[in-house]
């Protein structure tokens, strides 16, 4: 049986048995090879679920929206499972709130160009890390040698070039906040951009305010980013946001030891919410 058939069958069984209240997967969109997230509550809809090479969206963040209805079942690939681990570690959900149907991910493709998605070529954990059951086998995928290659490219520029490079990014940003809304680490009940009385970030769209938003976003998710690359994929202006996220991750790697977020469920604090007495001293 193909993974898609197993997912459909298991979603149907789980919903029928009442073990879960909702199931999250993907359905086919209107256009060729297009998929879109699907949330079902009725076992009769299980036939709509699809799993193919074009399932670009991650699903974990929807769990927080539908959790009120009861236990949630969802399909998880590597990135989805890390997002679930992230949500559990951040105490947004509990492990027993979700039923995870794992599926091996060979890397997804862009539906238009048929090329592998950038986020998938950079992925280092394509198979689920936590799951309750697997639909099919784990998949093989090439792992990138250096996950910080693009950061090093930027670091090789002069300071003035970097200023211009990032300012051109901020000049393009339209502040739709899709990067925030899709991010499994952005789980604040109220985001700082919505706190209008405090007025953290002005409403004007200009380089300065966009930089304020961009840098704050990176600092807020810095030590929790699971490198799913969704922020970059959803950006309507195609801004290279992972170059910022990975810079912080690279520095944390260098300074505080090998770091990868969302691999195991644990109660340990994340890197920037803890400290060591022996941390490097640069400010004496």
């Amino acid at each position, binding site marked *: 049986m193909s993974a898609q058939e197993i997912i459909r069958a298991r979603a149907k069984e789980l919903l029928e048995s009442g073990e879960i209240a909702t199931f999250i997967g993907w359905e086919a969109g209107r256009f060729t090879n297009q998929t879109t997230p699907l949330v079902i509550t009725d076992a009769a809809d299980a036939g709509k679920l699809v799993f193919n090479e074009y399932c670009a969206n991650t699903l974990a963040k929807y769990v927080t929206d539908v959790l009120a209805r009861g236990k949630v079942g969802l399909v998880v690939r590597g990135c989805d499972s890390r997002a679930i681990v992230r949500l559990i570690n951040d105490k947004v959900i509990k492990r027993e709130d979700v039923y995870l149907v794992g599926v091996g991910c060979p890397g997804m493709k862009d539906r238009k160009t048929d090329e592998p998605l950038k986020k998938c070529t950079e992925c280092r954990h394509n198979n689920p890390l936590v799951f309750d059951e697997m639909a099919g086998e784990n998949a093989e995928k090439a792992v990138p040698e250096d996950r910080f290659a693009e950061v090093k490219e*930027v*670091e090789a520029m*002069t*300071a*003035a*070039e*970097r*200023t*211009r*490079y*990032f*300012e051109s990014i901020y000049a393009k940003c339209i502040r739709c906040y899709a990067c925030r809304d899709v991010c499994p680490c952005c789980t604040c009940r109220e985001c*700082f951009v919505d706190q209008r009385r405090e007025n*953290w970030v002005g409403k*004007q769209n*200009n*380089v*300065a*305010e966009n*930089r*304020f938003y961009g*840098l*704050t976003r*990176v*600092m807020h998710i*810095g030590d929790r980013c699971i490198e799913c690359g969704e922020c970059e994929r959803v950006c309507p202006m195609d801004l290279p946001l992972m170059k*910022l996220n990975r*810079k*912080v991750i690279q*520095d*944390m790697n260098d*300074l*505080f030891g090998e770091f990868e977020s969302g691999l195991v469920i644990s109660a340990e604090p994340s*890197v*920037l*919410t*803890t*400290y*060591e*007495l022996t*941390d*490097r*001293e*640069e*400010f*004496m």
Partner: protein
Amino acid sequence: MPVVENNANAIPEDWEPKIIAFCCHWCTYTGADLAGLNRMNYPANVRVLRIPCSGRMNPQYVIEALNKGCDGVLVCGCHPGDCHYVTGNYYARRRMMIFKRLLEYEGLEPGRFQVKWISGAEAGKFRDTVMKAVEDVRALGPINLTREIPYFELPAMPDDDEEAFNAVPEEVFPEEVNA
């Protein structure tokens, strides 16, 4: 458009650097106070803002200060191990190390964002830090980031005390208040 390396070669004649210093209430702010009591001279380019602890230092403050017209930002707190709240500056140390690298990655010159540990007794270190920060920023020139401050510029830096006194904002609508 040619890439401008920095503004060091094009410093306007009457330009004075504007630096904001976020100082921990328990150590550096006290240290600054001691520097004042000891009549130590240091440049008036620095504006001191008190924060409860260097652990309270929000990276957003730095971006906002740079966006709103400062040419440099200084963050000062107790020496690690001396924090009034025991651990605050350990957290600050990690965050500021990451944040400083992030700002430099975005092209900010290292001299424009400095972090220093200064205890309440180190009035001299406070003076030296401020003097060095002012000199560093003065050498760099006005900040090389796009700052869109619509129609505002901070008032020019007063040279002597009398002008500093006059630069204090007047009461809005003094007549109406009197009437």
